[in-house]
């Protein structure tokens, strides 16, 4: 079995003759630093992107990815294999991002992207990025994982610890909400 989480094509090509999720998780459990490096090479680009969308800043995203990897390395020995290793890594990253958001709220910082306004003249990509910030937490998370980062519903369900049908339902809600926001008349 190859990595459970589907990879972006350019990345998948470089992973072709590399260990499976189980082999890599076993190597990481033994504390093999090369295995952690391989894990980083495979998942860091997508993890950075996800963290960026959750936190709104590349610097914060890098900090969260770093923290997540350190947590993974420290806790890998105790990984019990109830889910796939890669989905476990994403779950840790999401928790790190939530911690960063909570910390930011405690410090009364305003979100990096707090102002959203639909404008008829902005490209759809920009409008979409802004509209994403108006979604509720679960809708935005599922949308980011499925539509932006290309994870499957089965993987998202494992990461968020919800049934697969719930993941599909939240995605539909997210897209309906985005459609509504993007077709609304500018205020």
């Amino acid at each position: 079995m190859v990595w459970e989480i589907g990879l972006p094509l350019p990345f998948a090509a470089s992973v072709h003759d590399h260990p499976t999720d189980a082999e890599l998780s076993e190597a990481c459990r033994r504390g093999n630093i090369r295995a952690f490096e391989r894990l980083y090479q495979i998942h860091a680009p997508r993890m950075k992107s996800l963290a960026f969308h959750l936190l709104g800043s590349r610097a914060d995203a890098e900090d969260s990815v770093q923290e997540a990897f350190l947590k993974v390395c420290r806790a890998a020995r105790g990984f019990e294999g109830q889910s796939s290793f890669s989905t476990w890594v994403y779950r840790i990253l999401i928790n790190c991002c939530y911690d960063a958001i909570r910390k930011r709220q405690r410090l009364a910082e305003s979100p990096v992207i707090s102002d959203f306004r639909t404008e008829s003249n902005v490209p759809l990509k920009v409008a979409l990025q802004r509209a994403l910030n108006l979604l509720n937490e679960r809708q935005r998370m599922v949308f980011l994982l499925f539509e932006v980062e290309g994870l499957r519903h089965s993987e998202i369900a494992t990461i968020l610890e919800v049934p697969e049908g719930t993941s599909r339902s939240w995605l539909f809600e997210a897209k309906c909400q985005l459609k509504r926001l993007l077709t609304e008349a500018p205020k």
Partner: protein
Amino acid sequence: MKFECGDLDRALANSELFQEAREHLKTCAACRREYRLWNEISTNARELHEEWDTPELWPTIRQTLEAERKPERLWWQQGKMWAIAATLVIAAGLSFFFWRRNVPVATAPSTQTTADFLTEQALREVEKSEAVYRDSIDKLSQLAAPKLAATSSPVIASEKERLALLDSAIAETRANVASNRFNIRLQTALADLYRQKQETLRELLTTNTKNNDTKN
């Protein structure tokens, strides 16, 4: 059921309803726009994936990990040295133990060979004695043979019959001994049969001699 603009969202979630939506989309420009937007959301979402180089990120993570592990590694290295030392001591102890244990074991084959040789030698001596004994008894038989053939008294006939029985038993026992030379019980039984035959012949010859003395 007539499909209306408000049904589009439900149709997007339900493939059965979507067949009806297709017909509606042909005639409704507003719904067509919404449907196009629905698809464009997914298309544009993929472009939201952010990629940027972070050449320092992994080295930083690695350095942090190595710094955290250093004390553990030193302890482990120390532990490893102790483990190697302990293994060597145990290996040396086991080697000595087995060497000591093997000393008598190493001499065992020669002892066994000697024992086998002695047994074989003893058996050969028994067989040699038996052969000498058998020859002696045969000589007695030859001496008794004219008397046995000439005399028709019931006592002699009885002795003659007994000797025949003993000869038959001796022949059978010798055959058994030939197939199992080391069976002491058979050897003893054979010796006993020879002894009985010898006794019988001796009595027979003695009786004749006594009879002759009485006659004289």
